[in-house]
């Protein structure tokens, strides 16, 4: 990930771009670039207009406004990030402001003059240690007339000066860690450095722009395995059956991408989509089919949800999984009816759910009772609308009513196999009598897509996969609003939706963390967090087998309800906690034993039957280097693994255990600390 360093992309989430200086790492020490600035067209930090990095805070706006989108009066600005002390001393901070100002350093308010006044200097002091980086927040508002704001510092032997760019960073270590927890498969020190230098909004934009790592085009194989397509024990070049008639290679590629790919957020979103739009290797386990399917989701991760629905509906893997392929019109005597599987789950799980929702995701209640979104009539209507499709014609073949099994390419309509009667869809829509499978399918998907539930339903699920299991209704509503209209009148723009989720105060502002906030890490995320956070490497072989042990057999969901159902509630509560469906005494032990294996094994051996196998291992050298300073070792784990959220009591308990290990055995000390963090319940939950 070193290549990422030095690239600074600054673009506002709402599309307001702004330039920023390039920062470079020198001698392992980050060079500051400035503070993250948010400009609001109101006095009280509402109506965000501009988000950019300011190299210093030294502005005299006069009677003018800081930006054409903002009024010359009644605006506010918030600068956040971090500051690095250059010396160990009591530092004096100075603000010159017109009007109100307040400043926090290291969580301590050092200046408070949040009043209307002419240009006034305020001062405050705080002791800082050389080389240490502290959180900093400066809030300022302008009432009317001249507008001035300047931030300076001094210390004994160092005269007052505007705080230089080189000492300022647009994100704290903890802020960087938190956004990385939400947007990657696990923070690393290199990524923490990077985000701390470019700031959180720029990181999100950078990730949204990353090209797809994705999956290769695996070779087509016939549905019936040729007799000579077998596995020869231990020979990596002769695993024809495993490599083509199971999802083994697709699973490995998933983990390799997650370990090494730069499109981390795209992968997170694609994996979320694969858990909303579920297919399973239990029914379709051809590698080329699984590869094409996951490539489709990954390429479309920041695309439009309506387009995804189109591709999913016509994808033969889904066709096979939920029986839309070879779904015949009713038999002549009426004894066989169209298959309802796809239509029912498309409505219930992929788009709208069973009950009408408000924009904020809460249920619409009429006389205290929920309102069903559809009944059996509509399910049958869609089932009839989706008749007539068969597998893609194999190159060189001829389209017939039931084409031979082929998962490459979209399904095809066979003329004459589509039900021509009218079909009742949602909200009273009726498709006219016609012999047109394509038009019926397009109209049916449009009918679903305009339903009011799609935005809150999909928004809530994406929030749950990226940020928290129980978003507030207001959070869901803010995201669903963007789902309904990305600002350019387009519904279903997932890039805009993901941007809205990640920039939302509920995702960013730790003061909004409630007791219930966060989500249990699903096994795949947990394992990757550990291996990445501990500077590890993996070819995916061990991770894929462990995923299964932990009840998340990758790409082999037990049913269309995913590895864990989205409506699973924490036992005895009304809280949603999907991932807890597969967290129990059995898998809890397996989670801890996974940590034991990767932390206490030098190398989980490469599988000789896998080409280019590297096994799985972690590298604790950076922790071992701190073996003599246990507190520093634990703090490093706190930054990388837990976005700085570790309590002092937790640190103390770990330090005590590490100090009980041999003082000369640096590996034992590092392993003890890593084990305790990675097995802790605090680490199991992303908050």
């Amino acid at each position, binding site marked *: 990930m070193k290549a990422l360093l030095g690239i600074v992309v600054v673009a506002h989430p709402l599309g307001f771009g702004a330039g920023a200086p390039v920062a470079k790492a020198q001698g392992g020490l980050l060079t500051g670039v400035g503070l993250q600035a948010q400009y609001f067209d109101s006095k009280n930090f509402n109506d965000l207009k501009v988000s950019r990095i300011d190299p210093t805070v030294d502005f005299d706006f006069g009677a003018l406004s800081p930006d054409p989108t903002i009024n010359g009066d009644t605006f506010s600005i918030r600068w956040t990030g971090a500051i690095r002390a250059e010396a160990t001393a009591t530092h004096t901070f100075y603000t010159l402001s017109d009007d109100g100002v307040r400043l926090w350093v290291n969580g301590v308010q050092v200046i408070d003059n949040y009043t209307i006044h002419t240009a006034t200097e305020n001062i405050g002091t705080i002791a800082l240690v050389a080389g240490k980086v502290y959180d900093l927040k400066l809030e300022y508002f302008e009432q009317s007339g001249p507008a001035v704001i300047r931030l300076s510092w001094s210390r004994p032997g160092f005269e007052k000066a505007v705080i230089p760019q080189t000492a300022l960073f647009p994100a704290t270590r903890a802020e960087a860690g938190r956004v990385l927890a939400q947007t990657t498969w696990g923070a690393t020190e290199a990524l923490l450095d990077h985000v701390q230098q470019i700031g959180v909004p720029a990181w999100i934009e950078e990730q949204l722009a990353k090209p797809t790592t994705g999956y290769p085009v695996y070779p087509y194989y016939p549905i019936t395995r040729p007799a000579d397509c077998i596995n020869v024990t231990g020979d990596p070049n002769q695993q024809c059956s495993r490599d083509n008639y199971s999802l083994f290679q697709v699973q490995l590629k998933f983990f390799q991408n997650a370990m090494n790919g730069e499109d981390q957020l795209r992968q997170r979103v694609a994996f979320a989509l694969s858990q909303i739009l579920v297919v399973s290797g239990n029914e379709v386990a051809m590698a080329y089919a699984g590869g094409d399917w996951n490539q489709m989701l990954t390429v479309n991760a920041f695309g439009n949800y309506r387009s995804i629905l189109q591709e999913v509906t016509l994808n033969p893997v889904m066709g096979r999984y939920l029986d839309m392929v070879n779904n015949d019109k009713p038999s002549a005597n009426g004894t066989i009816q169209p298959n309802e599987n796809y239509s029912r789950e498309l409505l219930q799980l992929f788009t709208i759910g069973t009950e009408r929702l408000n924009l904020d995701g809460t249920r619409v209640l009429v006389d205290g009772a929920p309102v069903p979104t559809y009944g059996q009539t509509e399910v049958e209507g869609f089932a009839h609308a989706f008749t007539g499709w068969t597998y893609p014609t194999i190159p060189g073949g001829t389209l017939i009513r039931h084409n031979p099994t082929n998962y490459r390419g979209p399904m095809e309509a066979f003329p004459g196999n589509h039900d021509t009667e009218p079909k009742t869809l949602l909200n009273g829509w009726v498709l006219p009598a016609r012999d047109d499978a394509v038009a019926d399918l397009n109209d049916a998907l449009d009918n679903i897509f305009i339903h009011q539930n799609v935005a809150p339903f999909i928004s809530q699920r994406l929030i749950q996969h990226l940020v928290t299991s129980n978003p507030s209704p207001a959070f869901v509503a803010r995201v669903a609003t963007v789902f309904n209209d990305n600002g350019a009148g387009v519904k279903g723009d997932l890039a805009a939706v993901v941007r809205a989720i990640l920039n939302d105060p509920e995702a960013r502002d730790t003061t909004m963390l409630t007791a219930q906030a*966060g989500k249990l890490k699903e096994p795949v995320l947990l394992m990757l967090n550990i291996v990445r956070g501990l500077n590890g490497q993996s070819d995916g072989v061990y991770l894929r087998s462990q995923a299964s042990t932990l009840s998340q057999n990758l790409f082999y969901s037990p049913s269309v309800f995913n590895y864990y159902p989205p409506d699973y509630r924490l036992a005895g509560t009304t*809280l949603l906690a999907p991932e807890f469906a*597969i967290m129990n005494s059995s898998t809890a032990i*397996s989670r*801890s034993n996974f940590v034991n294996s990767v932390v206490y094994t030098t190398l989980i051996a490469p599988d000789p039957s896998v080409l280019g196998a590297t096994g799985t291992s972690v590298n604790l050298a950076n922790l071992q280097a701190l073996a003599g300073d246990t507190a520093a070792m634990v703090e490093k784990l706190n930054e990388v693994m837990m976005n700085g959220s570790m309590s002092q*009591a937790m640190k103390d308990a770990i330090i005590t255990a590490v100090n009980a*290990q041999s003082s000369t055995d640096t590996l034992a000390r590092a392993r003890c600390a890593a084990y*305790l963090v990675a097995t802790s*319940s605090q680490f199991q939950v992303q908050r």
Partner: protein
Amino acid sequence: MIILNRRGFLKRGCDALAMAAFARSLGMLNFATTASAQSGSDYKALVCIFMFGGNDANNMIIPHEQAEYDAYAAVRTTASGINIARDTLLQIRPPSLNRQLGFHPSMPHLHRLWNRGNVAIVSNVGTLVEPMTRAQYLANTAIKPASLFSHSDQQNQWQASLSEGLPGTGWGGRMADVTWPQNGGVNFPMVLSVAGNNLFATSAAHEMLNVPSTGTFGLRGFSSSAANTARFNAMQTLLSQDADKTLVARSAGTIDQAIDYSTVIDPIVNSTSSTIEKMFAKQSASLSRQLLRVAKIIERRETLGLKRQIFFCSIGGFDTHNGQATAQASLLQQLSLGMKTFYDATEKLGVASRVTTFTLSDFGRTLQPAAGAGTDHAWGSHQIVMGGAVRGGDVYGAWPTLALGGPDDSGSEGRWIPTTAVDQYAATIAQWYGVSTSDLPTVLPNLNRFASSDLGFFVVE
């Protein structure tokens, strides 16, 4: 009598090995003091088998009388791909119906047990808010269960025995809550799952214990060295921290429970001296592996000192929208063989009449075939009850009229409106297990909406 007190362990700060030894010694002690009282006289266990996906009960028990079979075959034609040939049926003649029916041909084992009187069928049972007729269903004059024909909703309603609102607990969990005192103060979880978390066994008061269906069950990597003890103690300390964060605390509770109880359960389920293990020797199906573990735990019931236990098992794959004939045949074979072997094991252990096994499933499936040689989601279905205390060899509850658009159909595709509620099925089982009449409303709050709270499928003790 409390064999494990987790907080006690924390305070003592035992290392893992010492803790395991301590737990075992307590178990042994418990065995020594209560063995005489435990020898089968007051032990009862329930084994719930959930058939995930919605079992097509219409092809599990099929009419054999010629006219009724013909009516079945007129809908489920040979061309549909899901017809079961009449001459392959394993015939039964339930006295209460006084006519010939037949088990699916893949169920010879349960057929044998039926003939021995140890298996009963409960007919057309399903989720209901209140009793309902076809006329009421069509006219919307009675309350329908929420989200009919949806897997997740109907699974939850079967497991909760509540068909409206958001159920937070299951009837297994609530049974455990009210019968907890019957375990005489033994604080070990009454409910064990060998099939993962489930609503059935969920209780607001007690967390179920999940045991893996294969392999070892225990924390690895701790020796009794001072360094390891320090690490173990720190791990325990961390589990007690951040209790104000809901998800962290819940995760900690689960890990904590797992560390403690696995030391007791692992030696039991991985014992090599079990007398019933070899009965399952040739069975690799997941359900059989689960039932073997249940049987081994029952075999060592005195070690745990429990008088009442509830187990949850499952078998998946019943959502047979396509290719049903082959898929369901295989599943019913696994079910039949696994259940019969388990019954035989309980007989060998001398507790056949102390253990009752019963099935649940999302819903039945449409009598009308769907394109792809399958069936779609429906409603009422038949369930199996097995055990030495079961008044077997009979069908309980009304047999549905297998006619599209007939009196039992909610529509036109053969989705039977249940004539017996899950609540009644559950109540019959709960009362056998030891739930008192006064506790029944706690376990099954809607029971009084239905005519009978005892379907009569247990031998009167």
